[in-house]
Structures are given as C-alpha cells and as structure tokens.
C-alpha cells in the first residue's frame, strides 16, 4: 500500500469515527439513561386521569347543611400524545443506511414506496445542500432529500465523510409521496414493541427524531414530523445544531 493510499484509508477511518461519535451523541442526547427492560414513561395524555382519593369521609347527612366545595377543575390534558400515532401498538419498521455508516429506521406505516436510485432527479438551484431535487413519479414531483446531510450538521467533523461522490442506492418515498429519502442499503423490516424504543420527550430540537430503537441502537425517524418541518420551511439552524 502506498503512502497516499494509507493516508486515504486513515482519512476514511477518521471520518467514520467522527460520524459514529456524532451519531452516538445524537442518540444519547436525551439525558436519562434507560434500562432495556424499563418501560418508557408515557406522556401525560395517555395517563389515566388522577384518581380521586379512595377513602373519603362519609358525606354528612342532609340534616346538617354543609358547604359544597367548588368542583376541582380537572388538570389540563396535554394535547400532544406520548407516542406518534403510528406507535399506538407494536409497529413494523424498516432499517436503512445513510451516509455509508449511519443506520436509521422509519415506521412502515408512513412508508409510501421505495424506488431504486436513478438519474431522473432534477436538482433545484438555490436550495439547501440536503435537497437533491425533484423526481417525477406518478404524475407528481417527489422532493428528494439527502437524509444524511439533513441530520448531520454542516460544521460537524462527520459531515466531511459525506462530501464528494455519493453512492445512493434507494429512495424511500414517505407519507403521501411528497418526500423521498435518499439512502444506501436497505436493511430488515422488523417488529418493534413500543417499550423497546427510548422515546424522546423534548421535541423542541430535532423533532424528526422520534426516539432510539434500543436493540438496534439506531435513530427512529418520525416521517410525518419531518414532512411537516419541511413544509413549514425548515430554518437552517434546525439542521445545524
């Protein structure tokens, strides 16, 4: 192996390492560690309403006038659900690779179709680097996203491994067919129990990251939120934290 080949290999390893460190940080940014057997704390919306105390003093008889306390208003029920709609029960998910190293998963319920990577994508000028262009499909234009570049911030060391020639293999078309996620190899489809996911509770940042598949140690993408984010206009900061 020549010196330049060794340098190239060393650089590749360095990029891989940087990417893995980033992904680990991404997956572990939720503070509390979770034991595998633990059930995730469900969000308040799925909790049973607070029970009234079981032992109440017997009500006074009618002979004694009593002041009837004002009914205590029920605690407000948060509108957001603990889990995305598609995770009401166990759900099927598809594993896929992006950027060569990063494994991600998306629920099958939000998957529209998968097409082989092709050169019919028309790039659109003036857009973010992660927007690859439009792919005509069934009389509509699918907006194809380089998911690796979307999730890895521009200023992160791992991003360097995404520069240069890319080898996309598939486009996972999601939702109603508006967006396509350009990715590499497709992995298995497997069933996920809801308690095998470490669900994120703070979705103020990276709301597209629904949680982490604990056994697979990979990011679970909430495609619906992802699509909403793009529709509403995704500020550059959103992707570059």
């Amino acid at each position, binding site marked *: 192996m020549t010196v330049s080949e060794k340098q190239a290999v060393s650089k590749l390893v360095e990029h891989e390492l940087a990417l893995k460190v980033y992904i680990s940080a991404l997956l572990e940014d939720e503070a509390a560690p979770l034991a595998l057997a633990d059930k995730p704390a469900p969000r308040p919306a799925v909790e049973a309403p607070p029970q009234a105390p079981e032992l109440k003093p017997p009500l006074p008889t009618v002979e004694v006038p009593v002041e009837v306390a004002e009914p205590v208003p029920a605690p407000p029920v948060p509108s957001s659900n603990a889990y995305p709609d598609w995770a009401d029960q166990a759900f099927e998910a598809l594993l896929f690779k992006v950027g060569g190293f990063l494994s991600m998963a998306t629920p099958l319920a939000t998957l529209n179709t998968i097409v082989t990577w092709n050169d019919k994508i*028309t*790039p*659109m*000028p*003036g*857009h*973010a680097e*992660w*927007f690859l262009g*439009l792919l*005509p499909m069934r*009389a509509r*234009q699918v*907006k194809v*996203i380089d998911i690796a570049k979307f999730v890895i911030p521009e200023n992160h060391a791992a991003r360097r491994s995404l520069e240069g020639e890319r080898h996309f293999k598939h486009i996972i078309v999601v939702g109603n067919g508006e967006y396509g996620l350009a990715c590499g190899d497709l992995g298995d489809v497997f069933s996920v129990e809801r308690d095998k996911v470490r669900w994120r509770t703070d979705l103020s940042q990276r709301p597209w990251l629904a949680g982490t598949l604990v056994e697979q140690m990979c990011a679970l993408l909430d495609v619906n939120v992802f699509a909403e984010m*793009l*529709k*509403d*206009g*995704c*500020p*550059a900061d959103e992707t570059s934290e």
Partner: protein
Amino acid sequence: MSQAEQAENSTVTQWVTFRLEDERYGINVMQVQEVLRMTEIAPVPGAPDYVLGIINLRGNVVTVMDTRKRFALPQHEADDATRIVIIEAEDQVVGILVDSVAEVVYLDQPDIESPPNVGNEESSRYIQGVANREDGLLILVDLNKLLTDEEWREFSSL
C-alpha cells in the same frame, strides 16, 4: 389547434428555454429582448460576484449577470453554444449568461406546478414553478426575483 392559436388562450404562456449545466430553465418570453452570441465582457472593478461585467450593445452598456454563480453552479468555460440573453427585469435591461438557448415552449397554466419550497430557502425564491416535459423537467425562473431589491439597486448603479 396550432401553437399560435394556443398562445391566444390566456392560460397558455410562452417560455424561452436555456441550459445551465445539465438542467433546462424557462424564462417568460415577454421579458426576453434578444439572444446574443458570446462576446467580450469587460469586467467591472469592485462589482459583486454575480456580475460578470458589461457589454456594448449597439452603443448601450448592458450589465451581464453570472447566472451560474447565482444558481450556485460550478464555473464553465464559454464555448460556441454560450449565449447572452438580453432580458428586461425590474425596469432594467440585463444580460444573463447561459450555456445555450434551446427553444420557445408553450405551457398551459395547469401544467405548471408550484415550486418545491423545500426548506423555504430565500435563495430559491426565483424559482417560479416547474413543468414536466417529455424531455425532462423545466424549471421556470422569475427573472424579477433573480436578485433581491437591494441587489437590483446595486445592479442599476454599476
């Protein structure tokens, strides 16, 4: 119905198409004054990077925009197919440098799809829409939005 007859229909618009890199773009024919072969473009010292320079068009000075730069495309050596399209936008006569000029196409309004608006990028505001044609996607450009108001002011004062 002939193309000319179709043009009379108010929903049909005509677009001059040109190429940049591998993509085809369309601009409203009503804003196109003429198409010139590549000629000497004199650089303007201190001009912004989207300005290539100026040309003398029958005694009038016309500023030529670097369209590749504006569209964030790599630079390309001018060749026999390179054209300067003289357009009118924001009350200015401007030249835009393109790889080649292809044809004039007729588009019916329903055939024009809205722009992708992915990421709501300010820099893509000039994409007016897209039209799916047999030979590929045509990207329709709103020439008035190629530059911001401030850039247009700067452009006019060069």
